[in-house]
């Protein structure tokens, strides 16, 4: 006999196939009468039993200050930490010496949605969001520029809190 064959422990006698079949049929028939547990997705996106987790890391969002400017100070930490290399940042500086991003682009195709950019951001400017419906008709539409990132309105995801590991 081959070594390492896992022999399942099954009752060798005293079992009735017909009775087991009838029991199985009773079970499946019970399920036939139960209401569907599914959600009609495009019409309803959350039910009383299910909603998308607040920790969901989806489409990015750039936060803005009171004057509508992006909070980003172009420190360069997010392109540095990004494991997928999907953030393109060209820093600029105005006459007062304030740094701001000249170009800030995120390629949502390359992004692995790890959320490191949100964690590393000192100004809490870039966030990953609780949002997942971003299909487009062409590939170049998946590169989100600063304007588009700032225009997002969905909720931002809450980061994992070590003192509350299950998010309660």
């Amino acid at each position, binding site marked *: 006999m081959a070594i390492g064959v896992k022999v399942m422990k099954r009752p060798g006698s005293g079992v009735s*196939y017909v009775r087991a079949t009838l029991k199985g*049929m009773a079970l499946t*028939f019970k*399920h036939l009468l139960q209401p569907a547990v*599914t959600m009609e997705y495009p019409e309803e996106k959350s039910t009383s039993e299910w909603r998308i987790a607040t920790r969901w890391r989806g489409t990015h969002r750039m936060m803005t200050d009171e004057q509508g400017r992006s909070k980003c100070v172009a420190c360069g930490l997010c392109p540095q930490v990004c494991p997928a290399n999907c953030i393109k940042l060209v820093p600029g500086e105005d006459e007062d010496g304030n740094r701001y991003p000249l170009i800030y682009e995120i390629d949502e195709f390359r992004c692995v949605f790890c959320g490191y950019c949100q964690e590393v951001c000192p100004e809490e400017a870039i966030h990953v969001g609780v949002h997942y419906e971003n299909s487009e008709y062409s590939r170049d539409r998946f590169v989100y520029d600063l304007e588009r990132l700032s225009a997002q309105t969905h909720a931002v995801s809450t980061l994992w809190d070590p003192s509350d590991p299950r998010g309660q």
Partner: protein
Amino acid sequence: MTPDMKGFLLFSAIKLIVIFTALLVGVALITLMERKVAGLIQNRPGPNRAGPGGLLQPVADGIKNFIKEETRPAGATGALFMLAPVLSFVPAVMLLAVIPLAAPLPLDLDWNLPLIGAVSYHGALPISVADLPIGFLFVLAISSLGVYGIALAGWSSNSKYSLLGGLRASAQMISYEVAMGLSLIPILLLTGNVSFSEIVRAQQDGLWFIGPLFLSFFVFLVAGFAETNRLPFDLPEAEAELVAGYHSEYSAMKFSMFMIAEFAHVVTIAAMVATLFFGGWDIPFTDWDEQGGALQTIATHAMFFSKMFFWIFFVMWIRWTLPRFRYDQLMALGWKVMLPLALVYIMVIAGSIWAADHLLGWGAPRPLSFFLVGVNLIVGWLVFFVLDRGRVIRGSDRRMRGAIAADAAAGG
């Protein structure tokens, strides 16, 4: 041509067209029903996008299959590759022709039709395309022809998975064909006829054969599942092992034809079970349905349809209940359980009929039926409560235990 002949041909043609169309439309709707039942059993709604409640789903499937690209694998045996779906499809749709779908409709008419001329029909019009005197022998013969399509599809595809599927189908069909044929012998013993209309009449005189011939019904049902290649006997297409089995290499309408054939087989098996064991179009506890008339024909057809519908549902119900058999278990069940069971049952029924006839004097249909019900209770108890204890189809651990013991004895 005499007016009688013309009438016969005219009504045959009408029945042929109506039943063939109804079968194909029914098959399309059964594919939807299958998916709906699957969904409901898995606590989900099933297809519900195309049309109200998903009713147009078969249309969408059909259009998709019509406009799909026809692929042809390199090295496929040309003519046979084309022929196989047809060989599978044609026998499947032929089967329903002999099954009486309702009580015969008494007609008494003399028409003068344009183009055709004088047409007359006197007597009862059987509501089946052809009320063949050879009855279920025709079904057994034609349904086993379907395996040619499957085996040839497997072989001509030039693919190892298809070939394995085709071989499995042939082995399975041969194994269960025997049990299926033998399971119908008791019906022959009881009615003395193989014609479906005679079998229905015998069940009206006595009891529905589900009572007097319960084990025949059991063997026939199991063998029927095997014949249609449905779960738990779908080893020819076993998608987990063989991609899609014998139709792996088929696409578009050719693939559709295999599917239509499979579902047409399901319809036929359901109709056969309803006819042979559940009284066919008979409405129980009343003799009104046997008087004949348009109303009776409609009512009996509704009765037949509901019985057939239940068995179609049953096939789907079983599909989502039982897992697929292992190949050796399939063969063991066929040869070691079903075949001996059917053979012994023939002896038991033959003996019982003889005893009832000659020793007890219960030769009339009703007393004989009740006597056989009693016999079946005893035999059924023996089979389902004494023999069915995992002795015949063994789990793998039994064989393994033997192997381990042999291994230990050899000093390993």
